[in-house]
């Protein structure tokens, strides 16, 4: 605005002002490169910094998939593209829609052989802003490290889903242990499941190594 308000005949002062504004411009802060997470998810995880790795793990039924879908929903709601590597082809599209994922911008890669899991994930890292990937049992550390490097280089958030019997054999910016919780609404022979909020424990890396507990109330 200041530039536009100056008289156009005064190129010297214009140039000086432009130079000052160039010097005074702040560097890009990490939080400016983050995907904003709305609601309680944002309170627990902060934002999703582009190029970071957020590993999700937990026992079956604890809510790992729901947390992953909530991350996808936040990304697609911001106009970004997301993709999921679904090794056994069990991810439910209905649950994704219910979690708020914009399905037009959400691709699912189904039934990739575990041997080519890393290649498929690497291709996705080239194209979309958030990749959720099932980690197969016995994932190789060198492959995982390469994926971490690629995610950082491309500025993509990689979310490995670590199921039972698997582990993420590389570094992660944040490790989120999904611990589940109780399911309300169902009694002995009556009632109906109502949506619940899984409990999570977040362990960061480096300066953020403080452990945080939270409930992802919906």
């Amino acid at each position, binding site marked *: 605005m200041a530039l536009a308000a100056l008289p156009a005949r005064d190129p010297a002062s214009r140039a000086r002002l432009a130079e000052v504004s160039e010097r005074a411009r702040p560097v890009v802060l990490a939080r400016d490169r983050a995907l904003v997470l709305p609601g309680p998810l944002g309170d627990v995880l902060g934002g999703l910094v582009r190029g970071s790795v957020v590993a999700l793990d937990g026992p079956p*039924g604890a809510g790992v998939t729901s947390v992953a879908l909530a991350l996808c929903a936040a990304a697609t709601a911001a106009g970004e593209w997301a993709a999921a590597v679904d090794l056994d082809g069990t991810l439910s599209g209905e649950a994704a829609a219910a979690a708020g994922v914009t399905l037009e911008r959400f691709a699912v890669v189904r039934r990739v052989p575990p041997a080519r899991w890393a290649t498929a994930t690497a291709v996705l890292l080239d194209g979309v802003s958030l990749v959720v990937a099932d980690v197969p049992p016995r994932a190789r550390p060198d492959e995982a490290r390469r994926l971490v490097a690629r995610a950082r280089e491309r500025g993509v958030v990689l979310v490995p889903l670590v199921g039972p019997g698997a582990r993420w054999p590389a570094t992660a910016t944040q490790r989120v242990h999904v611990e589940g919780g109780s399911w309300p609404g169902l009694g002995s022979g009556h009632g109906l499941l109502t949506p619940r909020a899984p409990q999570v424990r977040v362990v960061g890396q480096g300066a953020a190594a403080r452990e945080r507990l939270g409930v992802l109330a919906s």
Partner: protein
Amino acid sequence: MSSPVERTLCVWCPDWPVVVARRADPTLADRPVVVLERGAGGLVVRAASSEARADRVRLGLRRREAEARCPGLSVVEADPAAEARAFEAAAGVTEPITPGVVLERPGVLSFPTRGPSRYFGGDEPLARTVLDALAEIGLLDARVGVADGPFAARLAARRAAPGSVHVVAPGDTPAFLAPWPVAVLDAAGTLPALLGRLGLAYLGDFAALPAASVLTRFGHPGARLHRLARGLDEHSAPPAPPPPELVETCELDPPATRVDEAAFAAKGLADRLLGRLEALGLACTQVVVEAETEHGERLTRSWRHEGALTPAALVTRVRWQLDGWLGNAGDRDEDDATGGLVLVRLAPEQVVPATGRQLGFWGGDAAAGDRADRALARLQAMEGPDTVVTLVPRGGRIPTERVREVPWGEPRDAAAGPETSSWPGAVPGPPPARIYEARLPASLLDAAGEPVIVSGRGEASAAPARLISDALGDVEIVAWAGPWPQDVRWWDRVGRRRRALWQLVTRVGETDVACLVVVEARRVGIEALYD
């Protein structure tokens, strides 16, 4: 503001796909025939012979319905390449009459009549000459229409009787158009249906609206159709000849003798051409496809498209044309290429300002979409097209039925109608996040350790107490609901499924795990996990 409309002659060979199919298989003559095309919803009728139409077979019907309406129907799958190849002969005999022949699609061609009409002594004698030329190559039921503008000429050809001419006198075009239903404007679009609901059933009603109001309410696509309905040129500014540097050329070495070799090269050309036009803010409505053979022959043909050519539409047309020239060894015409093609050139003949496409507000969106498309297409090339899917919700009672997987790049065709919102008999509550199409085998036991049995009337033998499975181990059931009987497709002898569903909450270690357990044909399995 509007440009004068060019007087146009249009040749229409009705049911061209049927004509081609009958040529390929003479036993189909005089029998009801439909030509099917694979559309978004399966095989649908693309063209029907008059015998089939007499039995109320309409375009767009599904195959099964068409067969039900017309017993003894012969069904042929569409072969657009063969149709284009066969129509090349018609273009070939029209070309000596006028050099400006433009193909619109196989079965329809048009050309401006200003010069040839004066040479032959009027529109009527010119049209007769064209019909005679077509009759010589066996196209006896071709129809010719002459009117102001290609759109009206096409409708005039529809009005003409087989093998005859319908000429709309200069200036009479608006009156000629007025009684046509609005659906002729754009059969595939949604605007004609909307106009019908607004009470504008005929082109005359639509044409009577003020142009400015149509533009504000329906945008540029609506304004284009409004100009057509008024008998004006479809583009408000006259299509200008594009600057000559937009011509894209590709040399083929070694010469291409097969269609797919040449078409592959043409695909790159088409992408480059439209990319450069797009950068200039232009869209192409008519393009000249040119090829040179190793014997020095030069073949040219122009193709026209309503609206603007998309890359896919352009590539299809180029492919059709190359198919027509290279042809099969079996059916060589004299105007076919005698050798391999050494050069393919695409030159836009008419360009208009691109108005139809709006980039994302933040600029980056379109680029991000392109990037994602490229990566996903690469993955499809590596792992097969069905591996990368997009999910489309649909109705259904069984969790596995409630989502359709569409391979990436195919139309999602999301009919977000009432059927997805409420579906009686579906499992209520939050949708489970993991669904096992091949159920995880399990057994359901009551407090005494006996298996829980669900009777044919949907009654359980006892309350479930323990669930044993490989996935979760031997776990205690802390809460449950059910069994809910589901009798799916009871009217279908083959597809009928009778099952009973339990919604269970089990205690695994410290946490609760909720799942859906199905009993079907006495076998118990975990169908879905609320993860």
